[in-house]
């Protein structure tokens, strides 16, 4: 009667073995990590260097090589939570609409009279004042004709702009679904560009995720500080080449229509008045790299695409002797005088750069400009030493906790305690095995979760053992008592652990970063510990009972 079918027994022990095998690579963490990094590099490059080959050979490739990822708080690195200012893009969109709206209204000039753009508080609005209020209907109709329907799952039948009137003011605004589409596109572009920039900087396994509507979470292990990361991704890197109107020593109070006054990046107190419409922009660049000018000073070399090269060539041919400004994020890097026609579409930007600055600017320019600026809501830097200290402390605590719980269990339940302790060991292996194959990230609270699981995992065993004790008291035969013990303890085990599982589920949804790591280990630990208590420990008890056939059992 105390017999589980053979196939079931094989299956149970197979899962135990699988857990052990999958967890094994974590014992040789640095070696396996070296192997994995090398394998990745070799696959990307197509050949292996001597060091990479050595790293590859350090761990046999036929063995599982999944290891637990270490979270930022254990490995050290930088964490940033950025909010993308999507409103920037709205403003740019409305600015682009203005000439079109103006032209459309010009067509119905007889009815509306003169039109004038007015400042809007909402960046997603364009406010236009018309002279004759009576012509508002015609004005609205004319502008509405500009709207085009948008194709999306939710926005069927909706246009990209809405047009309304308020007295003499005509209001053109982005429609809800167009806003959503713009947001979506802006975040997507920002994600891509940040990813390119971080990848170019060559750090390992960065995490770049969208969070909520307009936020991006960036985690880069191994980077020195969050400030460094911010310098890399926080710059918009909008590059333009604008014709210079004049140079001054203060901000120009009246730059004139279509002009703006911009400060110089390096020269204190120098301002340039430039034409707002650029000749070429960073979008026309195909390539940029760190370079040196003819005097050996660091510079950024660049290459235009065909369109950019033509525009730049034409402009330089027509404006020999005139200065033009190289503008980055609203500051003039330099304003050289055009010496000759530049037809090739390539050139260098010189400024007061260090080699690092020139290289970084080159990275930023090749990755492209961010569609909108970002503000940083949260930033954390964790040094690698602190992470290592935490790992060491966690290991010590886990070992001591495990030994103490084991001694305690054996003292309380004797041989059955030994079974429970063995199960606990298998359970730990299984947790690490699962964490490794799902590529979960282990954080410091995650380690605490594992230690907590050491304490809680024996609970299911305790429930069963206590129940067996009770049933033995009721003068049942040992085999029967064991069987009933497992049967009757089941409902308590299931209810108790399901409620804990509910909690970890909420923790996972609500928590951020490290807390999530805790929720994951807790949830995995609960599931595996119930499994080991109900199947693995039971197998041991049954096997022992089958071999010994004791007349009395003392739990």
């Amino acid at each position, binding site marked *: 009667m105390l017999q589980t079918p053979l196939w079931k027994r094989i299956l149970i022990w197979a899962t135990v073995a699988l857990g052990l095998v999958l967890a094994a690579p974590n014992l040789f963490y640095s070696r396996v990590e070296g192997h994995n990094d090398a394998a990745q590099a070799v696959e990307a490059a197509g050949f292996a260097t001597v060091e990479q080959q050595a790293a590859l050979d350090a761990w046999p490739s036929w063995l599982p090589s999944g290891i637990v990822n270490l979270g930022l708080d254990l490995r050290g690195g930088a964490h940033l*939570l950025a*909010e993308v200012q999507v409103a920037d893009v709205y403003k740019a969109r409305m600015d682009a609409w203005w000439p079109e709206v103006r032209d459309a209204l010009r067509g119905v000039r007889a009815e509306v009279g003169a039109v004038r753009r007015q400042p809007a508080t909402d960046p997603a609005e364009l406010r236009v004042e018309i002279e004759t209020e009576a012509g508002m209907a015609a004005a609205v109709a004319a502008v509405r004709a500009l709207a085009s329907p948008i194709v999306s799952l939710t926005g069927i039948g909706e246009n990209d702009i809405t047009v309304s009137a308020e007295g003499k003011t005509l209001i053109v605004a982005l429609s809800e679904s167009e806003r959503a589409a713009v947001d979506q596109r802006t975040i997507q572009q920002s994600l891509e560009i940040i990813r390119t920039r971080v990848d170019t900087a060559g750090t390992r396994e960065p995490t770049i995720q969208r969070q909520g509507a307009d936020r991006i979470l960036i985690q880069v292990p191994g980077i020195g500080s*969050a*400030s460094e990361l*911010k*310098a890399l991704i926080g710059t918009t890197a909008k590059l333009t080449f604008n014709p210079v109107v004049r140079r001054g020593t203060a901000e120009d109070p009246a730059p004139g229509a279509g002009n703006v006054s911009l400060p110089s990046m390096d020269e204190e107190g120098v301002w340039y008045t430039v034409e707002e419409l650029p000749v070429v922009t960073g979008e026309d660049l195909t390539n940029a790299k760190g370079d040196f000018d003819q005097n050996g000073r660091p510079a950024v070399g660049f290459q235009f695409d065909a369109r950019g090269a033509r525009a730049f060539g034409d402009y330089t041919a027509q404006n020999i002797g005139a200065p033009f400004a190289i503008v980055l994020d609203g500051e003039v890097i330099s304003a050289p005088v055009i010496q000759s026609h530049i037809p090739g579409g390539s050139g260098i930007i010189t400024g007061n750069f260090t080699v690092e600055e020139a290289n970084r600017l080159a990275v930023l320019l090749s990755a492209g400009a961010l569609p909108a600026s970002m*503000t940083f*809501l*949260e*930033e*954390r*830097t*964790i*040094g690698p030493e*602190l992470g290592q*200290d*935490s790992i060491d*402390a*966690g290991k010590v*605590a*886990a070992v*001591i*906790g495990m030994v*103490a*719980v084991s001694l*305690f269990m054996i*003292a*309380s339940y*004797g041989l059955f305690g030994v079974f429970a302790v063995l199960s606990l060991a298998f359970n730990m292996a299984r947790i690490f095995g699962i964490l490794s194959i799902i590529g979960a990230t282990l954080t*410091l*609270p995650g*380690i*605490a979760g594992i*230690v*907590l699981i050491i*304490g*809680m995992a024996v*609970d299911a065993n*305790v*429930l069963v053992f*206590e129940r067996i004790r*009770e049933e033995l008291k009721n003068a049942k035969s040992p085999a029967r008592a064991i069987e009933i013990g497992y049967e*009757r303890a089941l409902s*308590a085990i299931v*209810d*108790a652990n399901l*409620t*804990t599982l*509910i*909690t*970890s589920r*909420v*923790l996972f949804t*609500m928590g*951020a970063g*490290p*807390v999530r790591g*805790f929720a994951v280990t*807790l949830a995995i630990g609960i599931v595996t510990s119930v499994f080991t208590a109900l199947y693995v420990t039971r197998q041991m008890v049954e096997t022992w009972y089958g071999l010994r056939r004791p007349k009395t059992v*003392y739990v």
Partner: protein
Amino acid sequence: MAWRLRLAPEKTSIDFFRWQGVTFGGSMLLMVLAFVAWGVMGLNFGIDFKGGTTIRTESAQPVDVAAYRAALETLPLGDVAITEVFDPSFGPEQNVAMIRIAAQDATESVTPEQITAVETALRTIDPAMTFPSVESVGPKVSGELVWGSIIAVALTSVAVLAYIWMRFEWQFALGGVLALLHDVFITIGIFALFQIKFDLTIVAGLLTILGYSINDTVVVFDRLRENLQKYKQMPLRDVMNLSVNETLSRTLMTSLTTLIAVGTMMVFGGDVIRGFCFAIFLGVILGTYSSVYVAKNIVLMIGLDRSEKPKNRGTPDEFANIDA
């Protein structure tokens, strides 16, 4: 008969309601006191909830808080708090302090210049000083984190309430959740009383307490449900006592193994995680207490309708024998 470690005598028949006024009443009083401590003293919120910056410093020289303060006073930083950190795992050359700077701006976290300025100022005390961690959170995010945490605790309670209601009776659900809140609020009260730093990991700790405490309560309830079926004539109070007595050994056993594990983590796990482990440690003690002395008292006070056949489980169908 081999020797066994016993936490409870083999057979106990303790009347857990005998000192109900002291045990249950005391618990309720403690809960009220915890609220008072929370309201009067407030929680020592970390930057997760208040916004601001913390910088961890490490130096070979002993930490001189006054000197640190003097070095930072020249900077326009506003409210600065400096605390020395002690941990048994630190070597003699490891002197650690935490510097907390209140949030400056309305939304943004901190400028790199500010951090550099602080680091430069502190390096005048010890040029070899290192900064193993720098964290800052903008007030905008911290406000959201507060709400997120409150919602998390509320959601968990509701989910647990719903589950117990489904599996047991509504009286059990109410008792279980009250026991949960008892554990969580007293823990919060203790954090307020001793002004221990309260940050996001502590909330995770509180949620863990929710999970553990309900686990413990459910085991008692499960036995109660079983005994209610078995002893239909026994007064509710006696069935409850019997159930708690029967599960007492298990309750103590599991609490102790968990306390051992969390305790070692608290002592040896390093200072970064200590608050979190302390919260869970407290919660396990309170959770054990509340599952014995709080949860079922509520059920007894409300009373159970025992005439009703509990969800038809195990009741023979009256027409079952027709075909037999």
